[in-house]
């Protein structure tokens, strides 16, 4: 479905449909409509105005890279990209990443991190572990609601990040219901969903990256995380722009 829409969009709008920012490396480019460019991030806008932006990334294994790669994983790349795009603003990205942790188990650490770090933005990656363990979908959805509400009460905007596109395990991990519920949670709370799955899938379709290879090398994984970090930064900066001035936000 999405593939067809992308193909159509590319056919209709050609290159103009891609994010062709000078600083965006060619491999990272995606079709414009795949990033939510409508939803504002008022708290981020305020933090940028105050020249200090604290971000919290909370997630499971797919938010990190094995081995030496902590500074190559997307949270660190996000920090670098944000610092680049927001000169004069002190950007700090804190992480709380634990492989195999479900959303329900992430609530407690999330709440304590919100209190100690006081981020203006919480980026919450979810969906893979739940699908692997076939966690009850209702419970998943309820936990998302709980976490999003907690973050907002603590004065933080929220961006959801869904599962990775993993072609080789696609037929054995059923992401569908979890992806849908993340999408719906984003719609209900009027927060952006960073569609990591869709982006990676379109890279696969465009031939940008090959996700099926058997390899132990980190090279491609690092490039993918770099792109994800950059695109996330793009989403954050754009969301803040929409919400300017903070007094009367987008909605």
């Amino acid at each position, binding site marked *: 479905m999405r593939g067809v829409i992308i193909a159509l969009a590319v056919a209709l709008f050609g290159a103009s449909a891609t994010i062709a920012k000078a600083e965006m490396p060619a491999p990272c480019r995606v079709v414009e409509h795949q990033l939510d460019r409508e939803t504002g991030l008022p708290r981020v806008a305020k933090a940028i105005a105050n020249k200090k932006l604290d971000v919290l990334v909370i997630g499971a294994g797919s938010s990190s890279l094995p081995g030496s790669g902590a500074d190559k994983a997307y949270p660190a790349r996000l920090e670098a990209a944000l610092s680049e795009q927001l000169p004069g603003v002190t950007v700090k990205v804190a992480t709380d990443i634990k492989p195999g942790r479900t959303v329900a188990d992430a609530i407690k650490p999330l709440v304590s991190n919100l209190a100690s770090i006081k981020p203006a933005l919480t980026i919450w990656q979810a969906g893979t572990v739940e699908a692997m363990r076939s966690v009850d979908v209702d419970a998943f959805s309820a936990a998302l609601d709980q976490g999003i509400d907690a973050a907002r009460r603590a004065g933080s905007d929220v961006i959801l990040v869904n599962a990775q596109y993993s072609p080789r395990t696609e037929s054995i991990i059923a992401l569908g219901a979890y992806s849908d519920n993340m999408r719906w949670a984003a719609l209900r709370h009027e927060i952006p969903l960073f569609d990591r799955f869709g982006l990676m899938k379109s890279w696969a379709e465009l031939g940008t990256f090959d996700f099926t290879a058997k390899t*132990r090398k980190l090279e491609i994984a690092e490039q993918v995380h770099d792109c994800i970090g950059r695109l996330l930064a793009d989403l954050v900066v754009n969301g803040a722009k929409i919400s300017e001035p903070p007094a009367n936000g987008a909605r």
Partner: protein
Amino acid sequence: MLVRKDSADVVAPAAPPAVATERDLRLDLFRGLALWLIFLDHIPSNAVSWVTIRNYGFSDATEIFVFISGFTAAFVYGRAMRDQGFVVASARVLKRAWQIYVAHVFLFAIYLAEIAYISQTFDNPLYTEEMGILDFLKHPDVTIMQALLLKFKPVNMDVLPLYIVLLACFSPALWLLLRAPNIALATSALVYALMWKFDLNLPAYPSGTWAFNPFAWQLLFVFGGWCALGGAQKLAPWVHSPILRTLAIGYLLFCFYITMGWYIPRLANTVPRIVSDYIYPIDKTNLDVLRIAHFLALAIITVWIVPKGWERLKSPIFKPAIICGQHSLETFCLGVFLSFAGHFVFTALSDRLVVQIAVSVLGIAIMVAAAYLLSWYKRVERRGSGPRPPAGKPGLVGSGA
């Protein structure tokens, strides 16, 4: 005008003259189509699956499949229960449930083969988390047992366990459907309501509950049975009323608009907050009311476009789908197997659009060919121990399409 019956279309055992209702070819047609859609949806990342109905509304092919299965089960076993009594009919229902269980275990064996293959051929630091799914190969003692108990159900293998449970519990429901259809339907609705009230569901392994909650989906199955045993005639004036038809079209358009918003964020932002607060999440596990409504709306429009006894139903164009619908269990299993195989082709060879289309078309062609083979074999069997019948029966050659 009644002589049409021997045109080799009717593969079901010839009905005794006492029962007036002839097997409705529309059921076979739409069940066959649903099986094709399920196959297309089961191949992950298949571009061709954009044609399937789940992308344009709330319900998908599963609703069609369960409803028609309930309809035909009541039709076939209802007749048996009237003619041969409760015990014999129940035995036949249970035998069918057993066959489906065996089919499910067969599919699980194929799944095991696939996952074992992936574990040997795949490694990537990007997917450290995802590869954890292969850990279950380290505990085959537990997982295989849980699969046999229908608690561990890998991807795309949830429909058959649902069907098994529904059939295993079907005899009492059928008994009541034959005597007091409305009470049977009301009981089914009550179970559905209690399920929502008390969160009833069967446990799954390693955690959670069944992806298709039998306490919820039984409603559609029993409703299908109710329609088969006279309910459809009762509903006819409603179904054909222009007001309801307009409502159905309106609702389908609404669902279409909402669903499009899932792919186009800009459109989603035009949906008022109250609406999205109300509709989400749309629960597939527990068969959300919005999904039932969408299925009913689709059904109303379908019986309007394709009326009963529509002449074209017998045209060769529809024959492949009809024949698949008449061998639904075999076609379904083959479809699951082919979707595994199709996905294998995508990852091991190529997932270019051309290949995706080719795999989809070829898969359906194989399903159709197998269904033709089965119906030919059934005819041969039925003819008994006589000399081998001459080849060239319409079943094998007559497709034309």
